[in-house]
């Protein structure tokens, strides 16, 4: 492949590619994102390869390993084009049937189609599945059409068109103005206006200037940046090159977590391809603009996602935040002006350039424009990645797209914004989700984590979990974060163990407020959010714990198992399944649980066929000495 030395070369190449591509030709698109990969999608790929070869179909059928489709609950996902049939939970043994029925006869394989659980009806077309139908897939849409290892796939889908437009028709200032007009806000957490950040770096006097992609996504349960970087790396590269042009940077870094090996691999591969095509490097498309990109692998610290810590890490030092009273946009990497944006933020840029700021701003709410990708996880039927316009309600996301709560349970809360976000109670289900609305009720957008919790969740236990996570992930530099989180963790442990008093709860609140006000970086400042939001909306649960009750019957120290003598038939199944030998009783006689020995694993409750085992909570029950 020769380098494109001018924009026209790329446009001609694109036209050739598009002409070569026969849209009527059958194409098997197999999701190879991390979720489907874990469901052994690679075996499905090999099975297709084998079968196609055996039946001499290799030339008639295209096959594609794509990035994450987002419907991870139902993986591995296989979509057959041009029919647009979507098969879920595909196993290697299903492949022969797909080939004979769909590839050769054009008919869908009924049993592999997604079934709408409400209507009990099979849905043939991918676009008709409620999970997809109710989304607006702008940034994430091309993931399922592209082989992330193929730059040609991206170019054929108008990839790098925005770059051409930028370099040929726009001045750096015009690019900046467009992004500002679009009112794009940072997708990584804070929601800071991207255009203003770019402008600060652009106007800073020092040289050189740097641009950085932050792909240090570490929130438990969140994987949107990962899937974008793995599935469509060129969209991020294109945004980054355009941003660098606007800002006047000639060097960029992509900070990817070491724990995301496929993202590292695909990003490095994409950079190499883009360099070969002359889209990165010296004199890009003959424009005179030079730009290079390096991948930096993170070493596993959550706090390194904080911008100043991330820059420290790239410099080769320990990833620790520093006070940012002089913004990193002015004095960042090696004390030079540095513009850092999240993966999704950069990926928005080509869309703004191609379609214009007005078009972009028409999506979403006035102060939160465009779409947002959420990672919808927890107690929800359709776990996966969801992209919706800003301002859509939580109810639409959880029920229309997410398919509601499994097992007919009731929703209790939604945790948004990762470990330092807040827990939103059910009463705010109709709240439009955007940066400001979430902030106003004590949570935040964060990078888009959304954990759904049903009625069986103990909110105190949730707060304890997140504070424990953050106390481990705090860098330990500043006193309020390190010692404050240590003590918050202690108090929460005491509360869930039934060892706390009213004054402990008051101290916890006071400490949370102080940590919020005084910590050095955003990790510490936002770390008390899970505590403060759960105290605000679920204070009764905290108070119940002080009385020795866990209303959701989760906290082990506060629950007990006992056998209802009226229901026990003396079958002995519980005795057999008790790992602690805590259950005794004569055959056919009423059994009894020794609360001193019981480890509260709940096995007895699960195996009992007569609903004779009861889970109780409250002070009258002796708490195990364990």
């Amino acid at each position, binding site marked *: 492949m020769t380098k494109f030395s001018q924009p026209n070369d790329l446009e001609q190449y694109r036209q050739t590619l598009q002409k070569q591509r026969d849209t009527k030709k059958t194409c098997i698109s197999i999701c190879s994102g991390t979720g489907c990969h874990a469901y052994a999608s690679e075996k499905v790929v090999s099975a297709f390869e084998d079968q196609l070869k055996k039946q001499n179909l290799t030339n008639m059928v295209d096959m594609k390993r794509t990035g994450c489709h987002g419907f991870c609950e139902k993986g591995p996902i296989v979509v057959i084009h041009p029919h647009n049939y979507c098969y879920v939970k595909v196993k290697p043994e299903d492949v022969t049937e797909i080939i004979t029925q769909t590839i050769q006869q054009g008919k869908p394989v009924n049993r592999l189609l997604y079934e709408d659980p409400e209507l009990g009806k099979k849905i043939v077309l991918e676009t008709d599945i409620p999970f997809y139908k109710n989304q607006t897939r702008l940034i994430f849409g091309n993931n399922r059409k592209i082989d992330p290892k193929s730059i040609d796939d991206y170019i054929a889908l108008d990839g790098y068109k925005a770059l051409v437009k930028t370099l040929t028709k726009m001045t750096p200032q015009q690019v900046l103005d467009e992004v500002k007009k679009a009112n794009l806000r940072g997708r990584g957490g804070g929601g800071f206006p991207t255009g203003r950040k770019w402008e600060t770096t652009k106007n800073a006097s020092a040289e050189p200037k740097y641009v950085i992609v932050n792909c240090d996504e570490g929130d438990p349960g969140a994987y949107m940046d990962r899937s974008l970087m793995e599935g469509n790396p060129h969209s991020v590269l294109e945004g980054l090159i355009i941003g660098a042009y606007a800002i006047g940077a000639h060097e960029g870094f992509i900070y990817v977590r070491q724990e995301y090996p496929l993202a590292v691999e695909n990003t490095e591969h994409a950079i190499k391809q883009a360099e070969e095509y002359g889209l990165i490097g010296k004199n890009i498309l003959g424009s005179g603009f030079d730009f290079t990109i390096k991948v930096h692998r993170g070493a596993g*610290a959550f*706090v390194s996602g904080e911008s100043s810590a991330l820059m420290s890490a790239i410099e080769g030092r*320990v990833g620790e935040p*520093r*006070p940012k*009273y*002089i913004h990193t946009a002015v004095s960042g990497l090696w004390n030079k002006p540095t513009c850092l944006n999240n993966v999704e933020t950069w990926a928005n840029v080509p869309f703004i350039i191609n379609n214009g700021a007005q078009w972009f701003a028409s999506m979403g709410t006035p102060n939160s424009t465009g779409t947002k990708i959420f990672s919808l996880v927890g107690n929800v039927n359709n776990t996966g990645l969801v992209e919706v316009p800003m301002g859509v309600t939580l109810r639409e996301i959880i029920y229309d797209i997410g398919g509601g709560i499994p097992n007919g349970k009731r929703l209790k809360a939604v945790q948004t914004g990762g470990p330092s976000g807040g827990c939103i109670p059910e009463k705010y289900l109709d709240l439009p989700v955007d940066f400001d609305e979430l902030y106003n009720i004590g949570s935040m957008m964060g990078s888009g984590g959304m954990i759904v919790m049903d009625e069986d969740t103990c909110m105190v236990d949730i707060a304890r979990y997140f504070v424990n996570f953050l*106390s*481990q*992930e*705090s*860098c*330990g*530099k*500043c*006193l*309020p974060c*390190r*010692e*404050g*989180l*240590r*003590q918050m963790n*202690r108090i929460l442990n005491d509360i869930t163990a039934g060892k706390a008093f009213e*004054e402990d709860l008051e*101290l916890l609140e*006071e*400490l949370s*407020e*102080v940590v919020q*006000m*005084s*910590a*050095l970086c955003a990790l510490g400042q936002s770390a008390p959010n899970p505590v403060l939001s759960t105290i605000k909306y679920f204070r009764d649960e905290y108070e119940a714990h002080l009385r020795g009750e866990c209303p959701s019957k989760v906290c082990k120290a506060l629950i007990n198992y006992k056998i209802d003598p009226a229901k026990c038939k003396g079958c002995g199944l519980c005795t057999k399944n008790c790992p602690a030998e805590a259950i005794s009783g004569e055959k056919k006689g009423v059994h009894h649980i020794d609360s001193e020995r019981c480890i509260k694993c709940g096995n007895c409750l699960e195996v009992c066929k007569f609903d004779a085992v009861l889970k109780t909570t409250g002070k009258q029950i002796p708490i195990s000495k364990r």
Partner: protein
Amino acid sequence: MTTISLNIDGKTIKAEEGTTVLKAAQKAGINIPTLCHDDRLEPYGACRFCMVEVEKNSRKKLVASCCYPAENGLVVRTKTENIDKIRKLLAELLLSISPSGAHVDIAKQYGVVESRFKQTESPESPCSLCGLCVRYCAEVKNKHAVCFVGRGVDRTIALVPGLSDTCSSCRECFNVCDAGKIVYLVDMIQEISCPPLKSSFKSSD
């Protein structure tokens, strides 16, 4: 040098451009408590005792005065209800690690007699992890013989193995470490002459 003017606790104060709020206040005789600050070292902003309220364009925020640049027209308040609340609680947090040290005076100033927090049993020695020893060794002595190891609640101070000669002939970090903890450093330095180290380093490191 350009002279700027800012308002601290109602007083108009002249300062040199490029200085910090803390230095400007100190020069004007206004006391702001600090633990991790030393004029010889780069501002660090870790202990958070020096937090003050700054007001700019009618927007107020809490900042660490040791790092915050003094600006023309800036309004600074070194004592507010929130600042008192922060300092009092930070002193309590430190008392839960160590009953002695520079924070005891601050605690007294803010009326703290006893910490409401449970005591943290330190495996090695009470240390506020202010980092003065680490930074003094790096920035003034340019030796980098003292360092932090571990993250979050596991963070601790250690000596870089193999630099025992440097340390035994220097010991200047003793002077920057506040009283109660100096014993700890002495212990560590003595360990250097009798390897293997008991510090947090494993031999493979």
